[in-house]
């Protein structure tokens, strides 16, 4: 039998050094007795030097877990950890065997440690030492963790409270952060910590005020903040009184429900009415854009962010009409700013057109989509929706008075002509619209984005640019 005496319970380095020597000497778990300092030693222990027979390499994930679980207060922990380490030497996938009894025990113990750590991060309450005028503020806390976790918890507090001095005292050990150095010392007592703090009154006021007496749920509170922590939490002394008064507070609310309108609110009612929008005929594009925001003519508006008005000056010679805003257009409130817009910009440049000189708009002003997880999938507007929205397009046409209108895609064609014609049937044959504008029909740039075949995409792109160039030529001839 090998006997190992651990001087500091919870010290991973000490256990690890002992375990490593034993593993290297191939001492099986049944041959080792782990004892705490102070326990009486066995008379029959074998203290011949250990002879390393093999190299010891454990998976990293296992070592970090062992480092945590050694802090567990259960006296059997050093023994069980050695058994697991021993088994892991022969089975590299041991940790994955979640249904193995040893691994299950390890996972549960690790969870207990991590929970204890989490609670320590949450429930330590610092109290301030010394007066207001101290150069560097210093604080001290008393805490009673379930396990010996001060060593594991201290780095969190160092990173969080770098700019002040602090000490956390527990019955087993203390952690001290002073002059940018972290050190550990022996356990302490509650008396070493001041029994109040100037800010505690404010904190308790906050705690009481943020509690909603109409939704009392004590079990939920106790599940997360077990009673064993309460005696060190300054706010916990208020739990009883708060609960005791909750019923009466709710009752008072019921009684004071106002039956009559409060005269103070009338003052503000006016404000709401003044800003009520007026929809109807408009004299300028700016007015049109404003009244467009109030459009509820078809149901698409319900989920869209905003209506997207056309962009450009009245009197532009060429007007471009697309289908409807896409995701990005909907967010920004501007037409053709998404991927299709980028493609359009490039094509316009190649066709010798300047976007700033054009009027660009859509046949439908709101974005129609289908929510799919974190995305919005574009949905084609129905002919009904296009026809309803034509009311706005007609007004834009009347205000802009272009010579040439370029329809991008089928929806635009429908919006302009009121008929559902195929693009192929009208493409390359400029015709005259009812208002006297010449119509150049072409595809929508997003059609080009969707073509998978490179060769075809290049050809379609060239045709698209040619259509835009034809519109430019028509506009030149019209002057």
């Amino acid at each position, binding site marked *: 039998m090998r006997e190992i005496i651990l001087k500091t319970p919870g010290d991973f380095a000490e256990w690890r050094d002992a375990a490593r020597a034993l593993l290297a000497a191939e001492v099986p778990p049944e041959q080792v007795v782990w004892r705490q300092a102070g326990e009486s030693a066995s008379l029959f222990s074998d203290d011949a030097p250990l002879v390393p027979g093999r190299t010891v390499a454990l998976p990293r994930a296992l070592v970090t877990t062992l480092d945590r679980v050694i802090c567990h207060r259960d006296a059997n922990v050093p023994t069980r950890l050695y058994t697991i380490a021993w088994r892991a030497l022969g089975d590299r996938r041991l940790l994955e065997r979640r249904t193995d009894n040893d691994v299950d025990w390890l996972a549960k113990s690790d969870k207990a440690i991590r929970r204890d750590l989490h609670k320590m991060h949450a429930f330590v309450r610092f109290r301030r030492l010394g007066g207001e005028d101290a150069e560097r503020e210093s604080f001290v806390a008393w805490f009673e963790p379930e396990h010996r976790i001060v060593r594991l918890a201290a780095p969190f507090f160092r990173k969080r409270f770098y700019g002040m001095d602090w000490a956390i005292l527990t019955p087993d050990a203390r952690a001290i952060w002073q002059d940018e150095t972290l050190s550990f010392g022996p356990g302490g007592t509650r008396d070493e910590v001041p029994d109040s703090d100037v800010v505690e009154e404010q904190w308790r006021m906050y705690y009481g005020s943020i509690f909603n007496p109409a939704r009392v749920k004590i079990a939920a509170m106790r599940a997360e903040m077990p009673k064993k922590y309460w005696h060190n939490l300054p706010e916990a002394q208020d739990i009883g009184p708060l609960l005791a008064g*909750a019923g009466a507070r709710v009752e008072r609310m019921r009684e004071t*429900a106002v039956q009559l309108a409060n005269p103070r609110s009338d003052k503000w009612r006016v404000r709401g009415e003044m800003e009520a929008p007026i929809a109807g005929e408009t004299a300028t594009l700016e007015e049109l854009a404003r009244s467009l925001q109030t459009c509820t003519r078809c149901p698409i508006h319900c989920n869209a962010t905003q209506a997207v008005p056309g962009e450009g000056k009245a009197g532009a010679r060429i007007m471009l009409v697309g289908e409807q805003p896409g995701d990005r257009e909907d967010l920004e409130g501007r037409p053709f700013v998404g991927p299709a817009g980028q493609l359009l910009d490039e094509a316009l440049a190649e066709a010798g057109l300047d976007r700033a000189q054009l009027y660009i708009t859509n046949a439908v002003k709101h974005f129609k989509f289908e929510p799919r997880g974190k995305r919005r999938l574009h949905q084609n507007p129905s002919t009904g929706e296009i026809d309803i929205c034509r009311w706005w397009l007609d007004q834009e046409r009347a205000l802009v008075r272009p010579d040439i209108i370029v329809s991008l895609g089928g929806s635009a064609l429908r919006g302009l002509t009121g008929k559902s014609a195929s693009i192929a049937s009208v493409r390359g044959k400029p015709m005259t619209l009812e208002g006297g504008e010449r119509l150049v029909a072409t595809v929508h740039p997003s059609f080009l984005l969707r073509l998978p075949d490179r060769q075809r995409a290049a050809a379609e792109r060239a045709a698209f640019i040619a259509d835009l160039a034809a519109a430019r030529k028509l506009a030149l001839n019209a002057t």
Partner: protein
Amino acid sequence: MSEKPILQKLGVLADAAKYDASCASSGTIKRDSTGTKGIGSTGGMGICHSYAPDGRCISLLKILLTNFCIYDCRFCINRASSNVPRARFNPEEVVRLTLDFYKRNYIEGLFLSSGIIRSEDYTMEQLVEVARLLREEHRFGGYIHLKTIAGASPELIARAGLYADRLSTNVELPTEAGLKSFAPEKTSATIRKTMAGVRVGLDDAAEAARGRLLKKAKPPRFAPAGQSTQMIVGADGAKDDDILQSATSLYSGYKLRRVYYSAYSPIPDASSDLPPVRPPLIREHRLYQADWLLRFYGFSRGEIMEGAEGGMLDLTIDPKLAWALQRREAFPVDINRAPREMLLRVPGLGTKAVERIIATRRLGAVRLGDLAKLTASVKKVLPFITTPDWRPGGLTDSENLRARFAPPPEQMSLAL
């Protein structure tokens, strides 16, 4: 007007903030004060520093800058016509409180909201100023959640995103009609436009991060914990279906991290057409479960509503179980063979349990006796699964299956 002492103001302005559901400090980047030698750190999961007797955690100092408000939303305690006591902090006072509380480890950071005073922009500027003071003057590295004021200018939203970890804009009520009748001065268009502004900020920051030439030249961050929103449940007539529809649309449109559902809770000095005392806490809970199914379990809204009746989720059993009871032909599933998507649909198996099952079955068949080590709720799972040594037989189709799970009708108690 005489100045109230801080303690009194804190009482008024924390009380006014208690109806806001969110108190999360999660989802942001890792940050600590080693480099700045200041105070404060954030990690992935956030920490609840205390719990109020209403069961909700206290993670952040959740307060209003002021509860004066020029709006008159009927469900809101701070509406212009409410007779509550009013108070106003100045930015320095909020900064002081946040730091004092933080240094004593009471909180993870600040969640600052405000009633609307003077104008949307003026109010938003004040909120941003608090965050700026904390970050720039005090090297504060803790969590900051700012409530954006719907209708504030995009420049202010952009500045808020530089200091805050999370931004949120409340949609308040799930339907447009509800908003119109309860919050006449707010429009869903303004709210959505503000959310869109935040999303554009998030997208642009992500784009800038991807497009940078040097790994070390980090572009400024924009609200790394993303944006969230809150809906009030049970104040108006909206059905659960409407609520989930609104939520899916918001998730997809504005890349929200979370939608918070807040059971309408009676407020002092309430207007008389609002529902009286008991907040629909179970309904709120079912909505959160349904929301989870949408985001982590691959359910669509339509599927969740299969287990519902008249557009309302079943209050007695959870929505996944309700769905499974409607779809018994899909069960039982073989724990050792079923694909992940199907395991996620087994009532009682959560995402963690499913991952464990998948990892374990690679090393050998999972048997009934193993299940207790992989999931906490073996009893609930039994009618829906098979293992080499377990078949539910007629249990899956038995008529009283629902009754096995439905709890006794008692809902909750007020006593300790």
